[in-house]
């Protein structure tokens, strides 16, 4: 267990709902759920979730901290917003799912090999490095995520699409060398550093 995680267990002993309210983005909405189930029924990825949102909310209230934070359920969310649109109590369910995923990640207890988590990390590193996504490098890293064999396989699979995108100027074939990013990268990095600091301090993660 990470130190941050141990600290949080200490701090919120037995009150996972409070912990979620204090640390998870939009977490204060969890208690508003009335367990109608519309979110779960409306989720296009629903059948693939181990615990649909409605169940996650109930588990939070029941204090099932480990089951929730180690779960890969909230990582299934594709942000289609169907649940938010239909929720009779207007809970920002999509945002809560991302909030939970992010919190588990920050505590270092999110499922290590979850592909969404890994891709999100690649994406974040990519965009924060230069302030603008380098799409070529992002795609290559995504293909390589599961090793070189899978890289070659996926590369061949997508070759046609890639060529088409090069031809129509949708993807810059030279981007690995020429990608510039934004002006004032230093400023961006300073801002991000500060933001992390503030968040960590507020959540007691530092």
């Amino acid at each position: 267990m990470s130190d941050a995680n141990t600290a949080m267990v200490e701090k919120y002993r037995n009150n996972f709902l409070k912990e979620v309210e204090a640390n998870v983005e939009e977490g204060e909405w969890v208690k508003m759920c009335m367990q109608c189930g519309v979110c779960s029924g409306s989720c296009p990825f629903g059948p693939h979730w181990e615990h649909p949102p409605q169940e996650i909310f109930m588990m939070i209230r029941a204090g099932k901290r480990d089951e929730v934070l180690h779960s890969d359920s909230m990582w299934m969310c594709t942000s289609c917003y169907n649940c938010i649109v239909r929720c009779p109590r207007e809970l920002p369910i999509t945002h809560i799912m991302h909030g939970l995923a992010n919190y588990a990640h920050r505590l270092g207890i999110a499922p290590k090999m979850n592909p969404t988590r890994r891709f999100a990390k690649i994406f974040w590193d990519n965009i924060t490095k230069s302030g603008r996504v380098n799409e070529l490098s992002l795609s290559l890293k995504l293909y390589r995520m599961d090793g070189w064999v899978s890289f070659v396989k996926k590369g061949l699979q997508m070759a046609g699409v890639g060529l088409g995108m090069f031809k129509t100027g949708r993807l810059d074939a030279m981007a690995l060398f020429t990608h510039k990013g934004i002006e004032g990268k230093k400023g961006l990095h300073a801002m991000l550093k500060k933001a992390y600091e503030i968040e960590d301090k507020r959540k007691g993660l530092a």
Partner: protein
Amino acid sequence: MTDVVATNETILVVGGGISGMTAAIEAAECGKDVVLVEKSPALGGRVSQLYKYFPKLCFPTCGLEINLRRLKANKRIRVLTLAEVQSVTGEAGNYSVSVKIAPRYVNENCTACGACAEAVTTEIDNAFNYNLNKRKAAYLPFNMAHPQRYVIDPSIIGTPEADKAKEACRYDAIDLDMKEEVLELKAGAVVWATGWRPYDAAKIQPYGYDRFDNVITSVEFERMMDPFGPTGGKLLRSSDGKEAKNIAFIQCAGSRDRNHLTHCSRICCMASLKQSSYLGERYGDDAEAKASIYYIDIRAIDRFEDFYKKVQQDPKVTFIKSKVANITLDEATGDVILHGVDTEGYHRYDNQHDLVVLAIGMEPSVDIKGIAAGVHTDVSGFIEVHTDNGGIFGAGCASNALDVNRSVQNATAAALHAIQVVNRVSAAEA
């Protein structure tokens, strides 16, 4: 010209449903003069459109009959039908009210013989049956209508159809020259009992009321059970005319939902419990007849709990704790498929049914703010009790989503408040 005597000691009751009738009768039986204004051509309101009412499952005609008898026996009540209040101004003890009266084209001579309806061939939507069928353009609103007088629909005025109706009448009851009138009345107090209307089901997009024939509302279901209703008392699907036996009920259709009505409509749980018991009545022991009630939680308040308990024992009825996410159509059969996840075990389901009944929410039928300025309403538009309202009192479903029992209690209370206001006027003038 319609002749109405009204003074500052008159109580005006707006809306002739069960609540308005109750308020009018109670006030009149206490010796007050009452003008009862009803928008439609007959008294009775939505109760007259029910097949049976909970909790005793008697026919509404019975309750209406008692009230109509008391009303007809009382000389102090003046009933105006096809009349709509347009504005109320003034203050407690001194209101001016403007009432628009639409022409019925039929006068007091009418004996309800029905010769005009036989003569006319034009048909119009039957509003009494929520437009599920048609009726003649000369019609009696419904069998127990009070007044027992036919109506000529304005759509045939000026056509040979209207002349046919007039010629057929042997009592000189049809007057095609009637015109719309606006009356200016005085009143000391106003009881506002304009009731409710069903929430527009088509707005609940995932349920497809506007797309699928076999998705209907609870008010339509009620009409289908009536032997004098659009289907002669049979539960028929409009897609293929087959009898529906495997029927789903969806609770909170439009209620308790920030996308629709935020309030709990309160009666829909009991309405579906009642309607699920109609299946036994129609199909006896037929094993194919099944009711599935999809709910968030069943709100059968106080004494209604007994009714709920009884329905729970019924082997025909299943309860599924889940708000249905969406409905799709099975093209081959016309059946509806309900999709969702239940809360007791989080099981995903895709359940096929012959017919689905949306237990539709209630909203106020009138926005009183546009008629009487300054009256306090809650976020849903129901009239609140407030001293700023002066001598205007909400009654029945105009004040909240209520069942008949509570509407009547509420209307009696409103009548008492109104009586106190006119008593003050009388005392001041004596």
